[in-house]
Structures are given as structure tokens and as C-alpha cells.
């Protein structure tokens, strides 16, 4: 008796999104299968690892994550170059923390100087996150978008309550946009509808479903991303943008990653434990469908790139 064919036949696929320009551009998405099920469909593009830098030197990062960047964190350009040249970053993510009213309230000129100098110093695609303060971001991000015109960057983030300004800015300057939702698949879909209703092309959207760290409701995040992916593969166009995971910022604020040995003598050396926590978080997100990982520690970046490389070469 022949074995029955149990492979799924999907009608949809994940959108391909091109980031950056020229030889340095990268395409993400495009899968017509769940992650790495190469017997069911194609995975034309691999998940990429972006490294995160800040516009101002961080004050609250654990030593484990500042040591690898010793001496460059006051200069975003040097920091970005170190990420690319020494640690293999495939994309640079600049978080504009310093413009937040509560964390420096630096003016738009500061942000423009940072993004402009970084953009001109690197060849890999660039991603810029606002500060998370809606009013400040709505003032600064349109200027950032304009300054980066022609770079085909990725800008975030648009959420259900605040999206129109960023959408218009990205549209005018030809960038891609990150749509954000608070661990809620219904809102994830709704934000994509709102953004496309404003005329923004669906194939320039990357979704950020709020990804969190291992140990903090992570299975819930996993199932949300997986369910979104199943919907996209079944033909739900509004769930078909690629998914971005903010691994570094989320992992490096939980105690499992950062607690010093003196506080947790049984948890092992934090210089190994932290990067491992980040690697495992990213590795798990890879299994449910993450297309872009924003990461922080060089060892975690290395682990992740190795894992992606090995999985892409299976079969």
C-alpha cells in the first residue's frame, strides 16, 4: 500500500520585501511553507540578523553587552562599522532612544546627524526605530525619512493608535514600514489594514508582533506568529508581510540574561548565560517564522547566523 501524501498544499506565501539599495540590498520573506519544511514549499530568502545600536551611549546596558563595543558606543558610526566588520551584522538598527522626552529629549537635529552619518558610512540596509513617544516620533521621524530618501530603509513603528504620520513619511520618501501590535493577532491584522487603507503598499510592510524574551509568555508569542504564518500561507494577504523580532532589547532587560553571579550564584556565568538566553530566544523565534532578528550580543549573533546557515543547508 503506498504511503499517503500528507504534505500541506498552501495557496498563499509570505511577501518578499527588499531592504536597502544596490549590491547591499537584502530581500526577506517569500516563503511558501512553514519554516524549514522544504518538502512543502520554498524558502527563497534566509532570516537576517540585524544588530542594534543606539543614537546615544547606553547607560543601563549590562557589562556583558557593553564590553564587546568598548570605546565605540559614543560614536554611532564606529559602533555600526564594528557591528558589520567585526561581528557580521547583516543590517544595522538604530534606536533613537535619545530623542525620548524622558531619556534626553534631544532635538531632531541630533537624530538627523546620527542617521545621516551612519547611512553614509555603511553598505548594509538600515533600520530606524523612533523612541516610542508618539508626539516626539511624529515630529522627528518624517525628517529622518526625508533625510534617508533613496536609501530604501525600514522605519518603525506604526501602531493602531499612531500610524498616519509615519505612513505618509515612508510613502513620500520611499521607505519600508514596521507595523507594531501588542501581542495581539487581531490588532496585527488591523494595523496592516489601516496602513494599506492609507495607500501604503503591502509589500513594503514588515510586521512586529511584539516578541518578548524566553520565559515571559514566550509560548503565547510563538503561537501568535505561527498562527499568523498559517493564515498567510492559507491566503490571508493582510497577514503575509514578513515578521521582525526585537530580540536584543527584550532579552537584555530580563533578569535571566542580566543578573550578576553574586545575585544568582546557581545560574552560571552571566557572560555565557546572557548570550545563550538571547540565542535561544532568537532560535525559537526562527522556528515560528521570524524573518529579521534584531540582536545585541556578538556571541548570540554568531550562534544565530550559524544556526540559520545550517538550517538553510539541510536537504
Amino acid at each position: 500500500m503506498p504511503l499517503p501524501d500528507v504534505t500541506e498544499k498552501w495557496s498563499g506565501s509570505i511577501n518578499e520585501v527588499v531592504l536597502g539599495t544596490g549590491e547591499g540590498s537584502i530581500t526577506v520573506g517569500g516563503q511558501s511553507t512553514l519554516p524549514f519544511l522544504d518538502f512543502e514549499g520554498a524558502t527563497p530568502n534566509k532570516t537576517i540578523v540585524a544588530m542594534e545600536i543606539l543614537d546615544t551611549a547606553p547607560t543601563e546596558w549590562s557589562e556583558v553587552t557593553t564590553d564587546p563595543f568598548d570605546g565605540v558606543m559614543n560614536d554611532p558610526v564606529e559602533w555600526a562599522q564594528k557591528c558589520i566588520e567585526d561581528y557580521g551584522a547583516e543590517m544595522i538598527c538604530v534606536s533613537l532612544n535619545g530623542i525620548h522626552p524622558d531619556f534626553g529629549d534631544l532635538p531632531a537635529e541630533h537624530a538627523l546627524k546620527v542617521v545621516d552619518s551612519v547611512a553614509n558610512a555603511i553598505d548594509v540596509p538600515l533600520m530606524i526605530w523612533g523612541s516610542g513617544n508618539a508626539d516626539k516620533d511624529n515630529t522627528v521621524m518624517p525628517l529622518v525619512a526625508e533625510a534617508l530618501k533613496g536609501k530604501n530603509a525600514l522605519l518603525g513603528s506604526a501602531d493602531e493608535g499612531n500610524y498616519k504620520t509615519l505612513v505618509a513619511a515612508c510613502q513620500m520618501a520611499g521607505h519600508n514600514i514596521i507595523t507594531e501590535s501588542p501581542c495581539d493577532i487581531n490588532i496585527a491584522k488591523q494595523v496592516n489594514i489601516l496602513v494599506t487603507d492609507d495607500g501604503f503598499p503591502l509589500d513594503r510592510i514588515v510586521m512586529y508582533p511584539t516578541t518578548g524574551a524566553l520565559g515571559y509568555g514566550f509560548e503565547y508569542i510563538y503561537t501568535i506568529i505561527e498562527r499568523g504564518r498559517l493564515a498567510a500561507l492559507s491566503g490571508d494577504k493582510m497577514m503575509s508581510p514578513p515578521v521582525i523580532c526585537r530580540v536584543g532589547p527584550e532579552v537584555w532587560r530580563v533578569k535571566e540574561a542580566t543578573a550578576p553571579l553574586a545575585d544568582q550564584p546557581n545560574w552560571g556565568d552571566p557572560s555565557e548565560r546572557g548570550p545563550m538566553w538571547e540565542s535561544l530566544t532568537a532560535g525559537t523565534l526562527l522556528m515560528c517564522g521570524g524573518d529579521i532578528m534584531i540582536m545585541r550580543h556578538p556571541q548570540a549573533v554568531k550562534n544565530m547566523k550559524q544556526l540559520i546557515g545550517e538550517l538553510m543547508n539541510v536537504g
Partner: protein
Amino acid sequence: MDVIGERINGMYTDIKKAIQVKDKGPVQETAQKQIEAGASVLDINVGPATTEKADAMVWLVEAVREVTDMTLAIDTASLAAMKAGLEAAGGSLIMNSSKGDAKSLDKFLPLAKEHNASIIILNINEEGVPSDVDNRVAISMFGLAKAMEYEVPIEHVIIDPIILPVNVAQDQPQKILDAISQIKTLSDPAPRMVCGLSNLSQKCSNPKLINRTFLAMCIANGMDMVIADATDKELMETIITSELLMNKSIYCDGYLEAYYA
């Protein structure tokens, strides 16, 4: 749910006239409208427009193929017109339809195999449309067995339980719902199921309301496809909402817009 757009049918005066004077315009326009409204299959039926069924079918299929590669349902009881339509349409086909008796199935199933087409098998045999659930299931079972005999995969079999007018046979809708559930358990994978709704409300005063209410009930019992006018917005939104309630799509406040996107 797949909506098979029913509007390209020679029983409608605009299509009838188009067939008679060989004017592709109205046919192609109707096709576009059905697709824009959400149809995923287009039914092609010459109807009473002419006695030259096979020729008219080929002309109609070719006119529609000029504007879409979408799946076409070749709708005719004539074997010759069916053959001609299948050949003209190339790939992506549904045969609509064969009766569920041996004589009809022996004629139509080899064609389904030859063209790799899906086939709608009606819940009707030499004795007519059964009035009870058991006989509906029995005819479907017979159709599935015949399909296997002709090596037509179950995924290509679509059962039509045949809906009777509610003002004539009011006990039937409920029996059809039971039959849908039972037929869905006949095999794994299950055959798909389709219904033509318009018969349900013939000569009733609220036909559209009756149709879409019953369709929601059918969807809850496992109906996969419906032959209907896709430009009936209330019907389409009933389908979209029913599928949402059956957890087949992801809820969001703009779920209706999302469907049309």
C-alpha cells in the same frame, strides 16, 4: 468558501443576447465584475440561448479565458458540450455536473480523469432527489466509490446535495444540513460540498434573506462552495462573517475590508 459566480449563464438576457450575436463585451464585463466581487470560480452555462450547445460553450469559454485564468465550472448536462468546454478552457476546471447514478457517472468521470478536472456529483439518481438523509448519503457514497474506480481523487469530488424550495418541501433544509455533516465524514480526505442556493427560495417573498441565512447554516455544517451571484454584497458578507465565526480567518475590526483587499 469558494464562490462560484453564477452570472455567466444564457438564462440571463444580457448573456443570452451576447451569445446570440457573439458579442464578447457583456460576457467579459460580467466575468470581471464577479471576480472583483470575490468569486473564485466562474460558472459557464449556455442556458437556453441556443441549441448549438457545444459551439456556444466553446465561444463562451474562450471569451472568458481572454480575461482570466481563474477556475471555470463548465455547466452543462450535455456530454458533447462538456467535452468541448473542457478542451477550450485548458486547465483549472470543474465539471458541473453529473447525476449520481451509474449511467451518468460512467460517462462523466472518465472526462474528469482525462482533464484532471474536479467534478460536481449531484444528489440525484434514477429515482430522483431523495427526501431522506440516508439516501442522500448513500448516493454520495456511491459517487465516491465510482470516482475511486475511475481514479479521480477524492479531492476532485464535489457533492451537491440539491436544495429544494422551502415553500414546497419545508422539512428538507434541516435534512440537508444533517446530510452535509454526514457526507463530510464519509472519507478522509472528505469530498468538498457545493450548493446552488437559488432553488431554495423560488417564488418566496424574501429570497435573498432566505438564501443567505441558510448559507450561514450550511457553512456551519461544512459546506465548502456555493454557486451564487458574487455581486450580492449581503450574501458575500454573510459568507465572510460565517467563516470568521467558524475560526477560518483571523478576526480584526476591519475583517470585511481585509477580505476584499
